């Protein structure tokens, strides 16, 4: 894990983007997702998920790499940790799963930085808060966001059913729609 608090960002052009086979969502609907979440909660307890914030620089403004599913829904690369898995390792695993090419040779060496945000899900619902509400002692999910220090050159392979977007920060600021998915 990179401990430096300085994140170097590079222009988008310094990265190469390829494609790979589609990575389908496990759930077909929100209801399915929540149902599956419930099942997993019963089995494994609170879910911990991790997401990585990958930054690039464009037009002298930081952009965040988001994966777009369909035409509307965007999310950060990351996912659920296996029970007992270390957060950093888990995030690396997830990033590779989502963004790295399949061939072992081109696996990026993910430099995971510090945790910048933690979101809590108090109930089996879609809403999450940046804190655990005081009356909730058993949150259903805890999501941690980590900064990822990208090196100057990287090769990303994006699943065919997803689009990788570089979203400028101003698009995310005060944007309820986006905030909800974070």
């Amino acid at each position, binding site marked *: 894990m990179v401990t430096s608090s300085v994140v170097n960002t590079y222009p988008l052009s310094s990265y190469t983007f390829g494609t790979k086979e589609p990575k389908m969502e496990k759930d077909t609907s929100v209801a399915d997702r929540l149902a599956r979440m419930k099942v997993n909660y019963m089995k494994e307890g609170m879910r911990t998920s991790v997401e990585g914030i990958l930054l690039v620089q464009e037009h002298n403004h930081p952009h965040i790499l988001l994966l777009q599913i369909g035409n509307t829904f965007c999310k950060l690369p990351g996912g659920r940790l296996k029970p007992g898995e270390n957060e950093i390792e888990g995030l690396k695993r997830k990033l590779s799963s989502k963004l790295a090419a399949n061939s072992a040779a081109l696996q990026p060496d993910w430099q995971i930085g510090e945790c910048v945000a933690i979101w809590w899900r*108090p*109930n089996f619902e879609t*809403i999450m*808060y940046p*804190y655990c*509400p*005081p*009356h*909730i*002692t*058993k949150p259903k999910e805890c999501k941690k966001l980590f900064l990822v220090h990208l090196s100057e050159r990287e090769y990303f392979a994006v699943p065919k059913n997803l689009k990788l977007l570089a979203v400028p920060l101003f698009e995310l600021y005060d944007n309820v729609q986006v905030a909800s998915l974070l």
Partner: protein
Amino acid sequence: MDPGGDEQLDFGDEEYGGSQKMQYHRGGAIPALAEDEMINEDDEYDDLYNDVNVGEGFLQMQQQQRSETPRAPLGVGNGGFPAPRASVQDPRAETVVTQGVNIPRSATEGKYTNSGVRFPDQKSGLASDVGALPGTDASQKGRAPEIIHNSQAGNLGYQGSMAVAMSQKVGVESLDMSGKVTGEPGPLLKPVAGAPRVIPQVPANHMSSSSNVNSIRPVVTENQVRPAVENGNTMLFVGELHWWTTDAELESVLTQYGKVKEIKFFDERASGKSKGYCQVEFSDPAAATACKEGMNGHVFNGRACVVALATPQTIKQMAASYMNKTQVQSQSQSQPQGRRPMNDGAGRGNGTNYPSGDAGRNFGRGGWAGRGGQGMPNKAPVGVPGRGRGTVGAKNMMGNAPGGGNGVTGGAYGQGLAGPAFGGPPTGLMHPQAMMGPGFDPTYMGRGAGYGGFSGPAFPGMIPPFPAVNHMGLAGVAPHVNPAFFGRGMAANGMGMMGTGGMDGPHAGMWTDASMGWGGEEHGRRTRESSYGGEDNASEYGYGEASHDKGVRSSAASREKERGSERDWSGSSDRRHRDEREHDRDRYDRDHRYREEKDSYREYRHKERDPGYEDDYDRGQPSRSRSRSRAVPEEHHRSRSRDADYGKRRRLPSE
């Protein structure tokens, strides 16, 4: 909670009565209750005693029962019960009575014992008593009915919803017990004496007022543990919690009563903060009822909670209670805008619905969403002065407010409130000028203010309100408009007549209606009846949908009276008649439109339209073709006239 309790009781009663009454009243179906047939006959009288406060009479009843027990305990019970039942039910109105009634009818003492037994389950305090009861079951059997009454009453006293459960339980149990009980009519009344000792505990837990209940409760012990079959309700609401009272704390207490399936807190969505109430689901209904009895009033973090069976009413109450608390707090913080005293209005109406209900009114036009929260306190004052006016005012606000609101945020409220005042003096809150701009003629505004205002000094960003609504709101102020403005002779042409121009057509009708006895009124009425069909006439107005709705509405309103005259309608196709009809219709519409919103307009229209046409068909063939053909040209007229009206309207405000 009593009112809520009453509601619950009634609610429960319906359920209970619906099912159990069926069983019991039709006693013949149940062999064990065959002897109850006589009693069943008395059932009809049970309701009569629902509101009887027997009080001391209760004992008398018991004595009567005792004397009569040899004959037919149940029968006696029925006769006697209504009275005691009434007394028992005092704390809880009808439902208690009903249940009491059911009990004697359907169940013999055994049934009662069950209910009695239930008490102990629910109340830890009663447990000891319950233990004592079994020993006296036999003797208590005679008592059971009474006790059950009491116990049930007590239950009812505690929680309305519980009553339902209780009654149902009792009903079921009674069936079972009836066989057993038959042999023991005598001791019916004896155990009563023993009951009192149990009762005190119950009231302590709940505000049960059932002093009478004291008498019987402990009796039924056998069927004590019978599972709650009443309605299988496993959901409870636990309210009056602090926002920091955690689910773990709650769970630790809940598990004492049974297996908890799920605890779901109600939070504020925006922040995740707890609203102070939650929904608890037990795996077992008996646990739920036990918890309801036992945990109600339990202190969590220094605050006593409230436990209620999960019904739509209870959740509303909890939400209302929460809203009241938060609104009172928020209102005290937010700018009063001179409406502080009105803030009570927030709690005045249905707490939960206050925001939504009022908001709905205001928002009907859209554009108010942001203001809803604050708008409510402001609205309260408007509503207070006069309901009719207030609502109209609300509508005005809808029409006008968006315009005003756009310009000013806080000030918008004042303007919005001013809306109703347009027509006249109404609330004194108004500053018509503020709304429409200086120099705007208030009377003019009253007439077609909404309309004229919009077409004239359009507020930037104003959301064009639904024309129909506008008019309605405006119509509300109509009475204050100078009648002279309109002149007589509606036939002359409502639209042109009104100085303000086209839009006045509908308004004119209303105003004339409201104010001065127009000769044309009667005429209008007649014609209106004839124009029952509605849509065609509406088209004349040029308001398009709005007018259609209005016409339809009026038609609906007076449909009953107009049915007979539909034939006339089919016959009349003069435009003049139509105009008159429209006016009349508007009058009617005004009466009915105040509280309608866009969607409701449409509903009316649809409803009215079909029947209207059907009637035509029924009435006569000729009319059918006529109506149909008429409809087509009408539409053309409508569009044309509408444009004309618009033109007129726009001109006027600017003049």
